[in-house]
């Protein structure tokens, strides 16, 4: 596969060698010097239970956890669930103060909800105690912010996700196009590949248009890249993104995002309005799409010839934007400790061992999503997964609050998803749909106690 940055104009050979050297030194200086046998307490006969998302990399835990068992004597049980099921089970577990799991794996938008609910331990004291082992600064800076809620460290990052722009290198070469950097480039490329006799059976792009979380999250992925903001204080560089939660869903940029989604439907395959994450990735992997913006967790599947028809025929680049300032969507998973767990020390031992540079590299080589800068620049990792170079380029431009991290997050995204879906169907105008979303979300946030100014 091709990674746009390795092409001419990307990083130089010298810079590349520097990072390789840096990574090698970092690993030898910190990762390999840890004597885990003395660092981890023995826990023979104990069982550590983890509740987790059912994502493709979960299988890697089976391999890695055997090392933890050898070191501590504790066995590790990982139970994984689909996205909605996981959220539901974890909230109900926290609400009923259940200790059935010691480690809770959380998605970034849930961080505020779990901290405010008191469901997870504040890991700041643990982190300060083991700062040398964890090398906190080595984690992606915005992902560190994601894990931090009002001064509490809710979880330790281990699975950062970024939305990467994926394109078919063979088709782009044939059409004489470069990978899009702007939204207009993207629209033009989509138009080029759709209903074109030179590219039979190919559609321009696949988007997340399905009602609910799918299109709701897509809105938040694009709004910052159109130079807009969903709430008055929520924008990259904001000192407090939650200071003023007045919704700005009727702004010209917001309307432009939905108009963009609607304009693209003509370049999408049949059934586009019910398309969500899986269908979009499957359509790209099986060949009919020339482009798709996908969460980086899908990349190993695209590179697997047993599951993909585009292995060796696709490239990745940074998420396109309208104003030259790309804000690649950021998400992913952190490991928190259940506040009522009876094995908090064992849980912390596991977390610090699992997220250490040494184990994290093993995890990434087994298909896990990279979350550390050193891992993203590791030559072994880059050799196996060249797309991680795009992840590295994306990470410095991300915004920790690209999706709200408050307890109302799920409801906000779902409401946006409902009204955008209605606008895409043509059931209501874009302006009316976004006005209704704006009013409903404003009322919701006001009731929840956030600062919301009355809109004129």
């Amino acid at each position: 596969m091709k990674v746009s940055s390795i092409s001419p104009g990307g990083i130089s050979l010298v810079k590349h060698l520097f990072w390789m050297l840096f990574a090698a030194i970092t690993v030898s200086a910190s990762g390999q010097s840890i004597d885990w046998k003395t660092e981890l307490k023995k826990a023979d006969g104990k069982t550590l239970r983890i509740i987790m998302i059912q994502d493709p990399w979960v299988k890697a835990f089976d391999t890695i956890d055997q090392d933890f068992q050898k070191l501590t004597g504790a066995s590790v049980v990982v139970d994984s669930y689909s996205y909605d099921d996981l959220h539901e089970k974890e909230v109900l577990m926290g609400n009923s103060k259940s200790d059935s799991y010691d480690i809770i794996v959380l998605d970034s938008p849930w961080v505020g909800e779990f901290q405010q609910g008191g469901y997870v331990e504040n890991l700041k004291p643990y982190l300060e105690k083991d700062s040398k082992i964890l090398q906190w600064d080595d984690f992606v800076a915005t992902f560190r912010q994601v894990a931090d809620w009002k001064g509490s460290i809710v979880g330790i990052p281990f699975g950062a996700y970024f939305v990467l722009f994926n394109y078919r290198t063979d088709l782009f070469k044939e059409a004489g196009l470069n990978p899009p950097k702007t939204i207009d480039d993207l629209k033009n490329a989509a138009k080029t590949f759709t209903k074109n006799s030179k590219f039979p059976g190919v559609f321009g792009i696949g988007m997340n248009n399905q009602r609910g979380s799918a299109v709701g999250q897509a809105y938040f992925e694009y709004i910052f890249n159109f130079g807009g903001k969903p709430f008055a204080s929520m924008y990259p560089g904001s000192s407090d993104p939650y200071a003023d939660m007045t919704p700005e869903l009727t702004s010209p940029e917001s309307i432009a995002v939905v108009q963009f989604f609607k304009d693209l439907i003509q370049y999408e395959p049949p059934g586009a309005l019910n398309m969500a994450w899986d269908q979009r990735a499957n359509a790209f992997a099986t060949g009919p799409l020339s482009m798709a913006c996908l969460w980086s967790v899908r990349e190993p599947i695209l590179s697997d010839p047993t599951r993909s028809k585009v292995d060796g025929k696709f490239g990745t680049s940074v998420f396109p934007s309208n104003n030259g300032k790309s804000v690649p969507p950021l998400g992913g998973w952190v490991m928190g400790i259940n506040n009522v767990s009876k094995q908090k020390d064992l849980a912390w031992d596991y977390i610090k061992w699992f997220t250490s540079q040494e184990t994290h590299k093993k995890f990434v080589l087994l298909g896990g999503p990279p979350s550390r800068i050193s891992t993203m620049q590791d030559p072994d990792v880059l050799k196996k997964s060249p797309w991680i170079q795009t992840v590295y380029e994306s990470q410095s431009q991300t915004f920790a609050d690209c999706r709200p991290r408050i307890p109302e997050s799920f409801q906000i995204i779902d409401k946006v998803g409902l009204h955008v879906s209605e606008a895409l169907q043509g059931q209501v105008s874009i302006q009316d749909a976004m006005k209704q979303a704006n009013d409903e979300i404003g009322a919701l946030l006001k009731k929840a106690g956030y600062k919301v100014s009355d809109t004129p």
Partner: protein
Amino acid sequence: MVIPRTKRRPAKLDGTGSFTGATVRLGSLFRHPATPFLLPAVVYLFALTIYPFLYSVVAGFLNFSLTNPRPPTFAGLANYRSLFSDDLFLAAMLNTGLITVASVVIEFVIGFSMAHLFIAISDLRGSQLLRTIYILPMMVTPVVVGLLWSYILDPLFGIMNYLLGLVGVAPQPWFSDANTALWSVVFVNVWQWSPFLMLICTAALVSIPRDLYEAARIDGARWFQTVIRIELPLIRNTVLIGIIFRVIDNFRMFDIIFATTRGGPGRATEVVSLYAYRQIFQYFNAGYGAATAVVVFLIAMIIGTIAAKLLQREVYHA
């Protein structure tokens, strides 16, 4: 025949263990020899039915969020006011009604016709196998049925559009268009559940005395006159029970829609069960969700009561 209705006094327990009309005191109830045998059933009923229901009724009057560590506060009728002013809930009620009426009517027509077919071919070899195959969809979990049809009706990769393409029909959007999504859901629902009404109709039809058909034939009745004047009146009571089951089932329909459209596109396939699920298990608005559940329960109870009265009337006048 009219069955006379008599007023009966409910039986009560006395201290001797026999059912008489005597008044029972609470103390004697606990000493009654039947109490230990009845207690598990009473505890079960209270723990799993009465208590959760009463809890839902109380929660419906509270500001109660599962993700909010603050204790719930009294909200009065605010949850109910919000519910009936929410366009989405009203759309969900309308969609639920549409799906229920359309599904039950089509299921009955298909079920009745298939029952006739299977009775007509019952002497042929292999007819029982055909009937078994026909009722197979009923045995599959609805969520699996939803997933199966979401693949079959996938506009890009699905086999249905491929087959339609072979006979020159343009690809259909099925679940992905607001105009076709609801009818696609009805189609899948009918596919799964018309065998149920076929079984009910078969059982009712075979119980009709043969001499009535012969008399009709001698009188020169046409097939539709036989259906309208003999079959439908005589199978009505049996079929009504099946229809009540299906109405209640449709009213709480969730799995097929969750697996295929999630209520979309827009609000085209939003139904009350999905709405309540979203409020309680995705937004964790336990108070608002409980109010929704209470309203759904009341509507289901009203439908059930009307149907039961109807059935009772038919039985007495049969």
